[in-house]
């Protein structure tokens, strides 16, 4: 338990532009232990998906740069691995579940073919063995008639079933870490419950570490023990879900929580929002990026950057925490 399943140290992602670097993810660090799920929440465009892609080595593509001190999976630094070695790790030790299950599966192959291919690529073995493992993986995510599902093409399934199949594919090699990038955003509520249940089961039964990326705080609350709140490429607050929801310390987290509409009140309160807009990545304010929208900001907030000190498991990058 001493080595975290996933440890990210000082990860930065930037867009290269004519005038210089536009930071998208700005030196974030975190770690997730085996069997734990950590949520990464934030508004659209705050750098959540970029973080996931950077960890998976899906960057750099043209115009996007990545740097990190280390990205460790079970203590092994995958950031410094050569491309070939890294490909051996991807899908085997760390796997990803995508937002759009409709498009993340190849339409011309059956689910069975696709899942077996992942297994055979990473774990070798005979065709028969791959098929057995593939069927187990499908059964593992709740398909009781795995043989039938294996012979089916992605377009013949519903969105929820496709996402379950994605999970089966991601877990067929029993990875230590799964990154789930908004896996339920495209799904209806009952499918969502099913997916979340499967992810929780992975945590408990296989001790898989899960990085759960979402903009939906309530889903994160259901799924994760810990949560990180991201804003403009920085982690603003990190805490366990319970404390975050009861006592947010960063004004931004508090603002986000206040935005969740409350049902059941006798007099409906007006739906709140955080005043102002997310600044463009090319034009970030100096100091704390949230300062212009923050009603607690003082001069210091606009001049220097508050550090995130999460030594006690919880912390807020704020000079004047709540």
């Amino acid at each position, binding site marked *: 338990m001493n080595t975290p399943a996933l440890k990210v140290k000082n990860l930065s992602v930037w867009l290269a532009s004519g005038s210089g670097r536009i930071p998208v993810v700005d030196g974030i660090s975190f770690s997730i232990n085996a069997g734990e799920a950590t949520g990464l929440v934030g508004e659209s465009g705050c750098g959540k998906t970029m973080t996931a892609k950077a960890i*998976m080595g*899906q960057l750099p593509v043209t115009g996007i740069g990545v740097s990190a001190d280390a990205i460790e999976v079970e203590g092994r630094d995958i950031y410094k691995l050569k491309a*070939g070695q*890294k*490909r*051996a*790790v*991807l*899908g*085997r030790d760390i*796997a*990803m579940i*995508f937002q*759009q299950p409709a*498009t*993340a*599966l*190849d*339409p*011309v*192959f059956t689910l069975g073919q696709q899942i077996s*291919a*992942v297994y055979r*690529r*990473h774990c070798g073995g005979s065709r028969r063995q791959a098929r057995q493992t593939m069927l187990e993986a499908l059964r593992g995510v709740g398909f009781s008639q795995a043989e039938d599902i294996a012979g089916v*093409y992605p377009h013949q399934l519903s969105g929820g079933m496709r996402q379950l199949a994605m999970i089966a*594919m991601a877990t067929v090699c029993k990875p230590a870490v799964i990154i789930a990038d908004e896996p339920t955003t495209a799904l209806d509520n009952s499918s969502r419950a099913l997916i979340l249940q499967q992810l929780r089961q992975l945590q408990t039964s296989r001790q898989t570490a899960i990085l759960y990326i979402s903009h939906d705080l309530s889903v994160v609350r259901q799924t994760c023990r810990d949560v990180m709140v991201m804003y403009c490429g920085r982690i603003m607050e990190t805490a366990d879900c319970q404390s975050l929801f009861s006592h947010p310390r960063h004004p931004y987290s508090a603002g986000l929580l206040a935005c969740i509409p409350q049902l059941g009140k006798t007099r409906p309160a007006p739906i709140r929002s955080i005043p102002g807009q997310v600044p463009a990545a090319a034009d970030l304010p100096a100091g704390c990026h949230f300062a212009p929208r923050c009603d607690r900001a003082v001069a210091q907030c606009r001049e220097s950057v508050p550090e995130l000190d999460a030594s006690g498991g919880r912390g807020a990058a704020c000079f004047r925490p709540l």
Partner: protein
Amino acid sequence: MTQGTWQRLKSDPYGMGGLAVVTLFALLAICVWTGLLGQGWSAVTGERYEAASASHWFGTNLLGQDIFSRTLFGTATAFEVGLLVTLCSTVLGTVLGGLAGWYSHGWPDELILWLKGVLDSIPFYLFAAAVAYALQGSPWAMHLAMIATFWTTTARIIRGEVMRIKEREFIEAARAIGLPGIKTVFRHVLPNTFHILLVQGTIVFVAAINTEVILSFLGLGIKDGVSWGLMLAESSQEVLAGHFGNFIAAGTSLFLLMMGFNLLADALQDALDVRGALN
């Protein structure tokens, strides 16, 4: 090809008619290859310009050869040229188009597009004559000229399609499970272009048979054996003299096969287009 595609194709009478015609000609070609039919194409079995009769269904030509046998043999020639050119140019076009699309705007793309531009800018019949001259009358010069130029259309279509497909999420997903780029192209990108290749293949097949006829007519085509093009070339003198045997036999066969293939290609395109099926 999925079950649904076949169902849609089956419900298209024109497509099925086309398929029937093509299948009939293909069977005739197979019979010629296996030696069951058309073996007497070069034997002199009658008088010159005999009219159609029970022993010579389509009559005889200048030398007294049986035009029916020659037409049958011409069918085999057409399929031989069509299959070979379609197969080679499709493979070439798919691989080069796939690479160009995958590395779009990189140097492989530039190189392939340059090659395509050069080949497309040479007038085809001039090119065919040049290849025939360079290969000193090799019987394969015609095939080579066609393969070398026909791949460009396939490559252009595949390149565009690959550029579209590679942006899709399942390609990213393939990368996220550690599949190397070049394997992704062959494993996940190109299989998704199969429906286009099928249609494009039938179009190339038609073009190849057509071109063979023209090249043979010009004397740049078939060297040994007989083809519809050679028969049409012979007929150009005969028609003026009132002997229509060669002209009608070769012309009708060519027309029927082309028609069949075009109907089939059209129906295939509709059947493989899932959007069409929804309507």
